[in-house]
C-alpha cells in the first residue's frame, strides 16, 4: 500500500495513514478495550475486545456473559478487574463508569513462580 514512487503515491500513503489514525481515534472515542489473560483468553479465544462505552462496572460481566455464554460461571466469577492498571472493587465500585478509551483487564487468579 505504501507506494512512494510518485508524489501522488506518497500523498496517498500519508492520506491512508491519517485515515487509519482517524478511524482508530474514532473507535477509541466510543469504545473501551477489555483484555483477556490466561483462562479468560482461552475461553474467549481472543486477547481483547472493544466494547461500546461508557458502561457501569456492574454491567460488564453480564455483557460479556451474553457474548460468551458460560463465561461468567466458569471464568469471570474468580476474576478481578483492573481499569487503567488500577484494581476496582466489583461491589464498592459497581456503579462507577468505565469510560471510552479505558483499558480494562480481566485478571484470573495468578500463578507465577
Amino acid at each position, binding site marked *: 500500500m505504501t507506494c512512494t514512487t510518485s508524489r501522488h503515491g506518497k500523498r496517498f500513503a500519508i492520506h491512508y495513514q491519517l485515515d487509519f489514525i482517524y478511524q482508530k481515534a474514532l473507535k477509541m472515542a466510543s469504545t473501551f478495550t477489555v483484555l483477556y489473560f490466561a483462562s479468560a483468553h*482461552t475461553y474467549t479465544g481472543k486477547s481483547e475486545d472493544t466494547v461500546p462505552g461508557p458502561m457501569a462496572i456492574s454491567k460488564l460481566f453480564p455483557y460479556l456473559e451474553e457474548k460468551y455464554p458460560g463465561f461468567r*460461571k466458569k471464568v469471570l466469577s474468580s476474576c478481578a478487574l483492573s481499569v487503567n492498571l488500577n484494581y476496582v472493587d*466489583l461491589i464498592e465500585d459497581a456503579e462507577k463508569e468505565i469510560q471510552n478509551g479505558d483499558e480494562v*483487564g480481566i*485478571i484470573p*487468579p*495468578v*500463578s507465577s*513462580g
Partner: protein
Amino acid sequence: MASVTEYPPEPTRAFTGIKSIEDTATNTFVGLTYDKLDINASIDRVRSPKAGAIVVFVGTTRDNFEGKPITTLEYTTYPPLSLLTLSTIAKSLKTDNSHYLHSLSIIHRLGIVPISEDSIVITLSTSHRAEGWKIAEQCLEMVKDKVEIWKREWFVEGGVWRANRDGRQGVLEEEEEDDDDGEGEGGGVPVEYLEQEDR
C-alpha cells in the same frame, strides 16, 4: 487423546529483550523476559560493599503436577501491570528492611519454559545472611500471591491454567445468590481444574 509429542504453539511474544523497572532510590530492579534467565547477571546486579551476603532463589519448572506428567510449561502476563506489582513488592520490602537490605532484583521468565529450566530468579544483598534468607522467602511468597503472571501446565491431554491460590481475587457474584446451594454449583469452579481447549 493427543499424542505425547504434541506441544503447544510458541505464544506470541509481547516484546523482545527485557522489560524492566529499575528504581535507583531503593536499589531495586524487576524485569520480565522471554529469554533464558541469566543468574550471574542477577547476582552482580545486587552486589554491594555494605553486604555480607547475597541470597539467590531460583524457581525451576517441575515435570509433574501431583504425579501427573507435565510435558511443558508456559507463562503469560499483563506486562505493564505485573511490572508495577513487582516493583511495588520490591520497594515495599526495601522500605520495611531499609537498614540491612541493600539491593533486590526479581526477574520472571515468560513464554514456553522447558522442564527444569528457570522461571524466576530473586537475588538480594543484605548485611548478614539471616535477614537475607527471611526476606527472600517473604519476597517469593508476595510474588506468587500478587503478580499478574499465569502458568499453563501442558499435559498429554492439553493445557491447564494453574492458580497459586484459588478464589483470592475477585468476588463470586453468583455465589452470593447461590449461598444455599452448597458447594459445586455457583461461581466457585476452581480455575485450576478448568479444562482448557488446546488452542
